[in-house]
């Protein structure tokens, strides 16, 4: 790699050719603040927070997009630079709703941090006419989130990730100049558009302008009602990220502490969505083999990710028949709790409040879908995000980091290594392959690691010779990648038997409901790899690593569903899809 020599603040720095000043400075452990910049996603040099002085340059330059050159001399902290950043912050604040005390992002707001670092105490300096007041109305039309444009700083990160990464593009900058506002076309509420509820916009928003609909109060109300039997389930990816909310390093697996916290909060039972991930594999592997052997619709595409499902319904309505009819693991466990478990325990399903903790915002949309009520009442009542769980833990005064490890409750808490990797892109495929291959060949696999489908690449392909059949599979995460893959399938350019698609880039570990990773970390670390590693490590350390060897799952079939794909299984564990339009 060709290296370029520059000076930053008088010190020699070497950085690869093609680096920006921001990247080169980072190599020298100098953090230049940013607001609009998201590496590879939003490189527009618009916010002017990252300005630096370059010797010989006519004016201050935006370091996030300015490439380095041999002999360049950069100054990142001169009075001119500091004053410029201060003025930029003052101007942003002059049109910002400064109601920070109860703001959902207070404490991890990127704007708030900069204002603190730069001591912007005269925040009303440029107060005058404000568009914040025009923007006081919240957009609550979507099932999963709220947009509060009075907190928007027009960085356009949300629009960039929606259009450039997810290929959805339902939000963007409209009008111009002082009237610019981030909204949807023709003032449509987000709920009227073809927004897929992935929540990636929430994940990248630097302020409190976009946030999930918070249902923690509903959970507290249910917990205080003596009539209600309140059950909670936690998705695989939650344990790999929840610790970040309590200051633990990215990639810390906090499964044990999380279970203890949920018990302390007072849930009657703490179950694991990993159990129903195993159940999903049983049903989906059966469905896959059935489609292969009986000439069913192929490729079969996974249905675990509700953001992906909604995307498919809006943007690929002709392919909804390719979707597995399996409910997502969240909904499967909800259905099992209110049918099998309720019957076993003699509880009226109407008195059960089923809560889920998900890395996902689309799950809030999913709980309200049609055909998701196996017992005649919704399978899941309240879907919380990882962030909401952290808020709940804080509100209950639990010292999270000091907790002992707890165990999930039986029987819906037992799971295998195959289930926990559902949280990372390729995990569902790998888990399905472990079961499908052993079922087809009738022999035990020598190695359970299908490494071709692991990793953070957007699209992965592999093929396996199984019992005389060449099984071709593909994995996509991020909806832009999903679109690219499906376009190839539709044009006949590619042909697969089985496809896994996750709406969020990297899978659920990077879901829209996960702890927000500030841009200064996001732009320079692969936090997704770290979170995924926590799950793969847990899989590797598991004694049982194949879904079909989960003893509680076997018992569930013996006692209730008979066999995968049975009529009863279809009633409880499978669902239907609709065709939607693009708005």
């Amino acid at each position, binding site marked *: 790699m060709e290296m370029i020599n520059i000076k930053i603040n008088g010190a020699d720095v070497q950085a690869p050719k093609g680096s920006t000043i921001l990247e080169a400075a980072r190599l020298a452990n100098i953090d230049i603040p940013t607001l609009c910049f998201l590496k590879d996603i939003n490189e527009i040099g618009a916010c002017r927070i990252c300005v630096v002085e370059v010797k010989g340059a006519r004016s201050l330059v935006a370091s996030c997009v300015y490439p380095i050159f041999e002999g360049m001399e950069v100054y990142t902290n001169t009075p001119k630079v500091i004053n410029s950043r201060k003025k930029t912050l003052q101007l942003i604040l002059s049109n910002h709703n400064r109601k920070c005390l109860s703001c959902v992002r207070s404490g991890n707001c990127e704007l708030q941090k900069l204002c603190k670092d730069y001591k912007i105490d005269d925040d009303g300096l440029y107060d005058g006419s404000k568009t914040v007041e*025009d923007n006081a109305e919240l957009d609550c039309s979507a099932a999963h989130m709220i947009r509060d444009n009075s907190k928007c700083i027009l960085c356009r990160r949300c629009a960039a990730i929606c259009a450039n990464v997810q290929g959805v593009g339902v*939000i*963007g*900058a*409209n*009008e111009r100049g002082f009237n610019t506002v981030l909204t949807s*076309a*023709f*003032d449509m509420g987000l709920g009227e558009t073809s927004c897929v509820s992935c929540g990636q916009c929430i994940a990248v928003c630097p302020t409190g302008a976009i946030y999930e609909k918070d249902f923690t109060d509903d959970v507290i109300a249910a917990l205080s009602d003596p009539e209600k039997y309140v059950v909670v389930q936690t998705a695989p990816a939650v344990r790999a990220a929840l610790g970040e909310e309590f200051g633990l390093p990215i990639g810390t697996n906090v499964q044990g502490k999380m279970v203890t916290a949920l018990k302390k909060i007072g849930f009657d039972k703490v179950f694991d969505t990993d159990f129903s991930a195993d159940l999903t594999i049983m049903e989906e592997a059966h469905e896959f083999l059935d489609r292969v052997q009986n000439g069913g619709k192929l490729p079969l595409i996974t249905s675990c990710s509700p953001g992906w499902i909604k995307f498919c319904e809006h943007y690929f309505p002709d392919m909804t028949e390719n979707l597995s009819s399996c409910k997502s693991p969240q909904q499967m466990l909800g259905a099992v709790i209110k049918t099998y478990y309720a019957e076993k325990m003699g509880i009226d399903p109407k008195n059960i409040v089923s809560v889920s903790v998900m890395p996902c915002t689309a799950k809030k949309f999913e709980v309200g879908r049609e055909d998701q009520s196996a017992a005649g009442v919704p399978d899941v009542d309240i879907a919380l995000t990882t962030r909401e769980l952290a808020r709940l833990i804080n509100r209950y005064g639990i010292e999270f980091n000091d907790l002992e490890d707890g165990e999930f409750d039986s029987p819906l808490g037992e799971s295998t290594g195959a289930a926990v990797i559902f949280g990372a892109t390729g995990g569902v495929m790998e888990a399905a392959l472990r079961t499908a291959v052993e079922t087809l060949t009738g022999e035990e696999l020598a190695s359970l690691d299908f490494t071709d489908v692991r990793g953070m690449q957007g699209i992965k392909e592999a093929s396996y010779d199984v019992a005389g059949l060449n099984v071709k599979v593909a994995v996509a995460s991020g909806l832009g990648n999903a679109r690219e893959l499906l376009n190839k399938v539709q044009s006949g350019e590619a042909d697969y038997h089985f496809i896994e698609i996750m709406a969020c880039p990297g899978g659920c570990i990077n879901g829209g409901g996960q702890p927000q990773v500030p841009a200064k970390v996001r732009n320079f670390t692969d936090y997704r790899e770290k979170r995924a590693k926590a799950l793969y490590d847990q899989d590797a350390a598991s004694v049982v690593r194949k879904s079909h060897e989960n003893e509680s799952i076997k018992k569930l079939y013996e006692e209730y569903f008979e066999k995968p794909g049975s009529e009863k299984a279809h009633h409880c564990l499978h669902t239907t899809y609709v065709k939607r339009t*693009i708005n």
Partner: protein
Amino acid sequence: MSSTKCSVPFSGTPEQEAKLLEVINSLRDEQGCLMPILQKAQDIYGYLPIEVQTIISNELNIPLEKVYGVVTFYSQFSLNPKGKYNISVCLGTACYVKGSGDIFAKLQEILGIDNGGCTADGKFSLEACRCIGACGLAPVMTVNDEVYGRLTPDEISGILAKYE
């Protein structure tokens, strides 16, 4: 701020749509084709309502929001048709200091439309303009080709009544 939703029912004809599709097909392979397509679409329809923007979005396979973002960014594009009587109020410096802001506000109030809007019956449209070279008569407005000068807000309803 221009009004973002059109109050006048869409009455595009199949001929107009065929013409638009022809324009799109002739330009779709060119880089940056959205601007010329929008300009020609406005020539065809006179304005760019959601129905027209949706055709463009579907044909070019780009999000409607992206089309809308461009349309609302440039003042040359209009989301509303011109009314039978198009009212322009000068908000240039001379007129503005003589109170044309109040004239404009009065018109918004009486007609119930914002800048760039059109009344539901298609009769009046309202827009702000810059200097029309009649500063001596400030504040000035025009209704189609007729010029009204030295206006006060109280005169507005009387003037509009002439066009009822």
